[in-house]
């Protein structure tokens, strides 16, 4: 079995930012993503998940290193100033590299 290195970019953002994140994912050229609603707390206070509009969304995106770098750069430049969010990158290994 051959595993291939790839990057996992995780983004946690306020629900109002979800559309902007999705647009950005499309622009930088990711091949897919997974998302789910989460609660959280951070610099901008607690976010309970009882009103969908006030909750957070977590995005998880597997992608090639250069796309991950671009995604993080644009996140930092364009969305971080505007929305409550955190984002981080980690290393993963996948089976079919062509898919990402």
């Amino acid at each position: 079995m051959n595993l291939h290195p790839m990057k996992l970019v995780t983004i946690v953002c306020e629900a109002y930012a979800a559309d902007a994140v999705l647009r950005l994912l499309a622009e930088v050229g990711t091949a897919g993503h997974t998302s789910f609603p989460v609660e959280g707390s951070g610099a901008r206070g607690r976010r309970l998940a009882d009103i969908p509009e006030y909750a957070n969304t977590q995005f998880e995106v597997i992608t090639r290193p250069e796309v991950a770098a671009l995604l993080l750069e644009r996140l930092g430049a364009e969305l971080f100033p505007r929305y409550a969010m955190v984002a981080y990158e980690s290393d993963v290994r996948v089976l079919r590299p062509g898919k990402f």
Partner: protein
Amino acid sequence: MSDALVANLLSPAVLFFALGLVAALVRSELKFPEALYSALTIYLLVAIGFKGGVALAEAGLGRVWLPALAAIGLGAFIPLWTYPVLRWGGRMAAVDAAAIAAHYGSVSAVTFLAATNYLAAIGRPYESHAVALLAVMESPAILVGVVLGKRAGGGPPVPLGLVVREALFGRSIFLLLGALVVGALCGPDGMEKVGPFFVTPFQGVLALFLLEMGLVAGRRLEDLRRVGPFLLAFGIVAPALNGALGVAVGTAAGLSAGGAMLLGVLAASASYIAAPAAVRLALPEANPTLSLTAALAITFPFNLTVGIPLCDAFARLLQP
């Protein structure tokens, strides 16, 4: 008036709201699941829209145009007077003043529902199609507020189309207008079929929903000290003035006492779902804590308890 006030304070809706506030204050673990919040919202919007549509089918469109235009004008006007007050009276940043102005010009569907409940409880008739006013009055103020904020130099170059779309096609407007059209097409025949679900239990569902709204508002209470005394006062004075204005405009537009009271309540209410979404998109530099805390923790409870009976009293006073 004071009898009506007491009766309102002792209604299930207001008391369940207070219970939610208490739960948040004593930090009870009580929490509504998100799906329940969404389900109740969908139910309430569809029910009120459908009922309004059936009423509209009976009343005819002709009786709605004038009040609807009045409501749109009212919504567009409110940010125009609140913006300078917040900006120079309250010494707020331009973008914050514009954001708050947008919230107060737009409307809160739950406050409207509570007002219809109030009218039903005291047995005062109103134009059921007044729900159309709720639908048309959500967006104008948002657009005006965003333009004010942009002129003041706020915000990144967001395509205006997106903002208009957000303001016009949000979830709540869509459900409300959609159900209204469905109701208008079905008429009383349709009401007979779905009335036992959409009408009979309505007041109870609203009471349960207000318990959740109390929780939501209560969690905002701790932000009150962050908003400063000016905004605190604004959160009470602005709805009082807007309410009076709305009642006057409604009366002039030919609405009954009940209908004018509803337009007043709409003007008095501040949006906490649709406006934040659009403002967050177009004016991201605005501090959402200010507008949301004022709308949810000050103005919403004020309207629910005192504002609604006040509008009602004023509407009866003005009635020819």
